[in-house]
């Protein structure tokens, strides 16, 4: 049993924070479901996209928790179909970004999506190190951390022979500058949370 609307200025709800930080107003959503109807990843999700918004609308911790722990937010592909068709122009992709970041910050990301989380982290780690993505390095970290060692092993040789598999990281970026951007982004975020 949950009572709705428990937000306060001391403990702002996710909806209130999403409005402030992401400029997305979940109150605009009137639950028509058009986003769900057109979502290519809907069948991979445990909570439908429109329902993720409903879970934020009530501003109750139990519902917010369900949204943050859902598999849905990691199954979202970021294809922007939902916001393109939404009659109320609710920026659901931005809301999904916000929830993903919040879920990681609270360390409650759904376990079944761990491979997806690892992929994204491996991608950004690669960029932080070299300024540009080193695909082989990223895949290597992904395999190490997910344990999916044998997947795609078959196509690796083909890729290599077709010249699509760079064995070494590409130079060109200003590595120090990029690493600095990553560090500054973390610092600025920390400052804004104080």
């Amino acid at each position: 049993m949950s009572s709705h609307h428990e937000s306060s200025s001391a403990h702002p709800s996710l909806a209130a924070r999403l409005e402030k930080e992401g400029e997305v107003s979940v109150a605009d959503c009137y639950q028509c479901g058009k986003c769900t109807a057109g979502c290519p990843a809907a069948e991979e999700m445990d909570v439908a996209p429109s329902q993720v918004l409903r879970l934020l609308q009530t501003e109750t911790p139990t519902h917010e928790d369900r949204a943050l722990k859902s598999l849905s937010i990691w199954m979202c592909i970021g294809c922007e179909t939902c916001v393109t068709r939404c009659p109320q122009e609710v920026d659901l992709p931005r809301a999904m970004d916000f929830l993903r970041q919040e879920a990681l910050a609270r360390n409650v990301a759904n376990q079944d999506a761990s491979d997806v989380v690892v992929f994204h982290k491996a991608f950004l780690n690669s960029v932080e190190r070299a300024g540009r993505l080193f695909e082989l390095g990223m895949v290597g970290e992904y395999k190490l951390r997910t344990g999916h060692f044998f997947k795609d092993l078959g196509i690796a040789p083909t890729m290599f022979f077709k010249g699509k598999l760079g064995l070494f990281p590409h130079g060109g970026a200003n590595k120090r500058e990029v690493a600095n951007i990553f560090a500054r982004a973390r610092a600025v975020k920390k400052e804004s949370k104080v």
Partner: protein
Amino acid sequence: MTDLKVGYYPGCSLQGSSRDFAESLHAVAKALSIELVEIPEWNCCGASSGHMLDHLLSVALPVNVLLKARKAGLPQVMAPCASCYNRLATASHEIATSPATKAQVESVLQTSIDKLPRVLNVIELLAQVSDRIAPKVTKKFEQTVACYYGCLLVRPAKVTGFDRTEDPVEMDKLVAAVGGKTIDWSFKTECCGASFSISRSSVVGRLGAKIMQDAVKRQAEAVVVACPMCHSNLDLRRGEINQQLEHKTDIPVLFITQVIGLALGLPKKQLGLGRHFVPVKFPAKPLAPPTVP
């Protein structure tokens, strides 16, 4: 013919797994007297992983690229990768519309941000010079193809401002300009699965299967794309796709630059056609009997 000079942002995938896109793009650019000026010391834009995990970073990285372009005196930047294009355009849009985000990004990059260069996708660039294409066609590309736009070239409309969000036509026009015939089909902008290519390739298989099935049903001999991710998901991941299709298909997937390059008579090697997983040959044997009259 005067050189059309445009800032060029290759993005990480054109250096690696989508080398064929880069090769064909450079070949076609040279043939059409377009000078691609690579942005010095460009960094990764962050792609999907960026905005999914860290919003501020995902705006700062592309803005850094655009500032470099500005510094190099480039008023326009063309990003052939649809995801890079979308990130550059989105970051630019957020700087223009959200003072709070702008302030934070300025703090991260430790510089003030003035007007940023205009961001173009590869189709916009080719459309700008479409009158140069027709006179240089030596061998008409007389195939029937399905133009597949994917998600990020046309959505969200507020950011891209390009073509129609449903049933777009700009790529179709380019193919028609080199003698090709394009089919009217219903999966032009349906998502291919994007970055799930590595972490959830079965999803790519499922979504890609729907796309290929519709194209084959309407008797397309090839699918033409303008995005390295789409190409990879429909070409490299053809195995996963065919697993989910009742009738397997081996119609090839070409980049729009490869199509134009073929029509301009450029050699296949220059266009990177040998690097595909699904061999590029016409007419392909559709293993599925056509069902649409």
